[in-house]
C-alpha cells in the first residue's frame, strides 16, 4: 500500500454529506460540484486546497446521505486521504470505492491544521512530520486494500471482467 504525505485541513465531528455537497448541487457534474465542496461548513474550501492535502476530522465523518459525490468532490478538490476518529459507514465504503483513502485514527484531536502528516496505510500509522508525533491508526483489511490498490471498485471490476484476476 501507499504512503501519503500532505498538509492538514482540520474539521470537527459529524461532518454531514449535506454540508460536504449540498443537495442543490447534485443536479450538476463533478467539476461544478467540487467547486462547492465543504461549502456548508467552510465556504471557499475548494480554492484553498492544494493537490495532495489531507483532511483530518473528528468522529462520524461523512454522516448522512449515500451521495457518492461527497467523497468524489473531496477527491476532485485534490484531497488525497481523510483521517478521522470514525467514519459514517456508507461514506467509508464510498471512499474506498472511488479510491480515496479513509483512515480511522482515535487521536486526531492531537493533530492541528496546517501540520504536515505522513500516512502509512500498511503500517497503520499517521506521523506528524513537524513534531515526529506518531498516531496509531487502524489498518485496512486485505479485501479493502485490494480495492484501493486497484484505484477503486470500478477499476477492480474492470480487471475482474477482463479476466486479469479472479
Amino acid at each position, binding site marked *: 500500500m501507499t504512503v501519503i504525505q500532505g498538509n492538514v485541513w482540520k474539521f470537527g465531528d459529524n461532518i*454531514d454529506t449535506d*454540508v460536504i455537497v449540498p*443537495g442543490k448541487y447534485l443536479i450538476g457534474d463533478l467539476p461544478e460540484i467540487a467547486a462547492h465542496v465543504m461549502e456548508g461548513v467552510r465556504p471557499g474550501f475548494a480554492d484553498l486546497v492544494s493537490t495532495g492535502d489531507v483532511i483530518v476530522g473528528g468522529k462520524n465523518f461523512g454522516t448522512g446521505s449515500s451521495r457518492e459525490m461527497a467523497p468524489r468532490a473531496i477527491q476532485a478538490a485534490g484531497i488525497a486521504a481523510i483521517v478521522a476518529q470514525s467514519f459514517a459507514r456508507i461514506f467509508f465504503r464510498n471512499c474506498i470505492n472511488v479510491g480515496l483513502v479513509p483512515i480511522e485514527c482515535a487521536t486526531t484531536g492531537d493533530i492541528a491544521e496546517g501540520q504536515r502528516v505522513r500516512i502509512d496505510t500498511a503500517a497503520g500509522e499517521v506521523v506528524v512530520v513537524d513534531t515526529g508525533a506518531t498516531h496509531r491508526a487502524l489498518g485496512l483489511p486485505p*479485501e*479493502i486494500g485490494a480495492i484501493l490498490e486497484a484505484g477503486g*471498485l470500478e477499476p477492480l471490476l*474492470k480487471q475482474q471482467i477482463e479476466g486479469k484476476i479472479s
Partner: protein
Amino acid sequence: MSMTLAEKIIARAGGRDLVEPDDVLWVDVDLAMTHDSSGPRRIWPSLKELGVGVWDPDKLIIVADHFVPAQDVGSARILQTTREFVEAYGITRFHEAEGISHTMMVERAYVRPGMLYVGGDSHSLTAGVLGCLAIGVGSTDMLGIVATGRTWLRVPRTIRVQIDGSMPTAVAAKDLILTIIGDQGMDGGLYRVLEFGGDAITEMDIQERSVLTNMCAEIGAKSGIVPADATTVAYLADRGIDVSEGPFSDPDAVFEATWRYDASELLPVVARPHKHDDVVPAGDAGYAPVTRAYIGACTGAKHADLVMAAQVLAGRTVAPGVLLQVAPASRATLQEAIEDGTAETLMAAGAHILSTGCGACPGIGSGVLAPGEVCISTTSRNARGRMGSPEAEVWLGSPYSVAAAAIAGQIIDPRELMAASV
C-alpha cells in the same frame, strides 16, 4: 455456534455456515434497488465502459422519486435517462412518481423476511421492517451489484433494542426513535445492526415500525431489522404473499448490547435545528415560532402519518404566516387518504398537497426553504442546508407535533391541542 438474525442472513448470502462480527466477505445480493439520483445517470456510463449489462433485470428495482416531477430541463433529462436505462436493460419493476422508493419496497412487499436487500440510498434500511437485512450503499457499490449481483460486507455487531410497555396517546414511533437517537448520539449505532423487539413493537403496525428502521440511518447503523412476526405475516398475506414468522436470532445469540426503553414513559419530542441528535421534549422547545410545517418523505408521510396529522388538524385552521405542506410518500398513500377522508381534513385545515416524491426533504424538489425560514418537519434529517437554504432552520418531530405547530404557529407539545379536542 449461534448467530443473530443479521449474521444468519449474511452467512447464507456468503455461502458460509457461520460468520462472526468483523469478518469481511463477498455476498450474493437477493434484491437491489436504485433511484433516479444515485442510479442510471451515475451507473450507466460505467456499465458501458466495463462492457457489461445488468446482472438480473428481475432483481433490480428502479424508482424515480428524487427529481419527480421535473422542476427544470436538467431534472427532466435525469428522468429521461432513467427511463432509457429501464428500456435498454429490460428492468421489469420500474416506478416513476408512484412513491418514494423506500415506501414502495414495503408497500409493494418487494422484500421478504430473510432476504439480503441492498439499495442505492442511505434510507434503504427502511425495508428491514419486513424482516430482511436492508443495507444502503452509494453509486459505485451499486454499480458493482448491478454488474455482478455481488458486493462485500463487513459483518456488523447487533444491538438488541428492547421496547417494553405501550406507546402513550399522541406519542409516535418518530418520538421513540428520536428519543433513542438523542440518548445514543448520531453515531451511537455506527456500523451496528439494531434489532427491535418488545411489547411496544409487537403492538405497532408496519408503517409505524418502518419509521424506526428508516431512522436507523440517523444513528449510523448499517441496518435496522424487525424480525417477521404475526403482524408481518398478516401484512404480507394482504399482498398475496404467504410466509411464516421468522427467521429470528438464535436464543443464545450474542448481542453487543441491549438498549431498553419503557414506551409508556415516552413524550412527544423534537430535534433542534441542525443536529438530529439534539433532542428535547416538544414542550421544552421554547414555543419557537415556525413559518413552515412539512409533512413528507419516506420517514413521515405514509398513510399512518397523514392520519396522525389529521387527528390534530380536524376542525382547526393553520396559523397565519405558516405554510403547511403535505407531500404523500406514495400515490397509494394519497389514494387511501382521499378514500377515507383524511385528505379532506388536511385540506380543510389549510394544507397544501404536493406531489409524491422525496420533495423538499433532500433539498431538491418542491417546497424548499428560504433564508431565515423556520420549519418543523416529519422528515429524518436537519443538517444545515438539507432542505434548502443553509440560513433556514429545521426542527424534526412527529406528525402530531408538526400538525400542532402548524395550528399554533409555534412548537408546542401536541397534547396541549389533543387534550382540548376530546
